[in-house]
């Protein structure tokens, strides 16, 4: 059972971002708002790319960020999987190597990696692309690889930053359906950011609205 709670403030330039989030295993919190509302900054705070100015981020009993206690965990120590606005796949690695990356970075054994990657290639219907490089895939296929990479390490928390960005309408529907399927078997907590409330309505169990870095009553 995972419980993530993030409360506090962060400052990015002149913008003040108010964070107030609580999510636990099996839940998908959708964060919606127009472009520039500060949605991505929420995720970047949780991921550890931006520090809080005040408040805290706590996952179960582990403190990820608490400026008052001078406590901060690096992104690689937080047990997160993340899908970025652009797939952010590593162009010099094959699909198989991209998916294996989180396990390899965490020092898993070759046998473990092979077994798990084979499983995820099958689960995400990417088997025939295993030896391809990202530039040889369509936008939708790249996004599937990005989701597989985010999930393979069995993260406690999954962050999705506009996962449908730059994808055509038909592919968007397919990926949305795929994500709904993956969420059903995902054991951790999930935060989904989107500027499109349809995406959030289709996938999230609860929603938060943001505008200019501030929470808006939904």
């Amino acid at each position, binding site marked *: 059972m995972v419980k993530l709670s993030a409360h506090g403030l962060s400052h990015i330039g002149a913008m003040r971002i108010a964070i107030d989030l609580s999510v636990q295993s099996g839940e998908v919190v959708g964060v919606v708002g127009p472009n520039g509302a500060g949605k991505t900054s929420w995720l970047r705070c949780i*991921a*550890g*790319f931006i520090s809080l100015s005040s408040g805290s981020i706590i996952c179960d009993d582990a403190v990820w960020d608490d400026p008052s206690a001078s406590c901060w965990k*690096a*992104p*690689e120590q*937080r047990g*997160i*999987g*993340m899908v*970025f606005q*652009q797939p*952010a796949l*590593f*162009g*010099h690695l094959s699909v198989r190597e991209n998916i294996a*990356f*989180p*396990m390899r*970075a*965490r020092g898993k054994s070759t046998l473990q990696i092979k077994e798990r990657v084979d499983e995820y290639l099958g689960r995400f219907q990417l088997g025939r692309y295993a030896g391809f490089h990202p530039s040889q895939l369509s936008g939708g296929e790249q996004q599937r690889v990005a989701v597989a*990479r*985010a999930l393979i*390490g069995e993260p406690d928390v999954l*962050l999705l930053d506009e996962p449908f960005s730059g994808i055509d309408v038909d592919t968007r529907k397919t990926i949305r359906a795929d994500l709904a399927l993956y969420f059903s078997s995902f054991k951790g907590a999930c935060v989904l950011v989107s500027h499109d409330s349809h995406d959030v309505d289709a996938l999230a169990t609860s929603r938060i609205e943001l505008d200019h870095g501030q929470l808006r009553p939904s």
Partner: protein
Amino acid sequence: MRHSRIPWLIWVLASIALALFFIPLLSLVIRAPWSDLTQTLSSSVVHDALRLSLVCSLIATSLCIIIGVPCAWVLAYSSLPGKSAFRALCTLSMVLPPVVSGVALIAALGRRGVVGQFLFSGFGIQIPFTIVAVVIAETFVALPFLILTVDAALRQLDPVFDESARVHGATSWYSFRRVILPSIRPAVIAGVVLAWARALGEFGATITFAGNLQGRTQTVPSAVFLALERNRGEAIMLSLVLVAISLTVLVLLRDRWVTAVARGGSW
């Protein structure tokens, strides 16, 4: 046809530029004493100079990689104050007359230099006029080429790749080795080749700081300089050896690597 739109004056000026490059190189080939080729290339002077040039330039290039890549990493990603001043310093040492670099090295590492006096009095180490001086002089002039090439590529690389690696469990060192460096590989290779070519052709700083002693500190450019005084044919043959090496470097650099660097240093 596209070229028909270019004014004739531009053609003339462009031809002068091409001739300026081409005629001296062609003259080297024409004036070379080809009948003495075997004898010149098998002389001990040429052997020693070639061996020293290759060994020293390769060591200097390795040093450039070992200290230059981390330096570019710090320049590109740290929030160190005065980064732009350091970048300017790198650019300055690229355009500095090599003889000035040699004088600066003597001032720093000479027997009575700022650092050299302690090396000599404390450990009995004397750097000038040794093979170490050749390597240091070549590293000094070649390093900025590697640092600035890698720094530019790093700054143009989208930070999302590093973030993506970090959030998926990679330490910053792992991300640098496995994600960032491979992503800018063409720029790193171009920087290494440029640095090596610069080290190989280095003359001014080397002759000032290391001297011109056959078998000890005499590189090919220094040997060419000395040969001009006593045997012009040998100087031309040695120059052609350097031209051949430079040409090989150019062929290695062509197409993909040069294009990749111009694109921003990533695949």
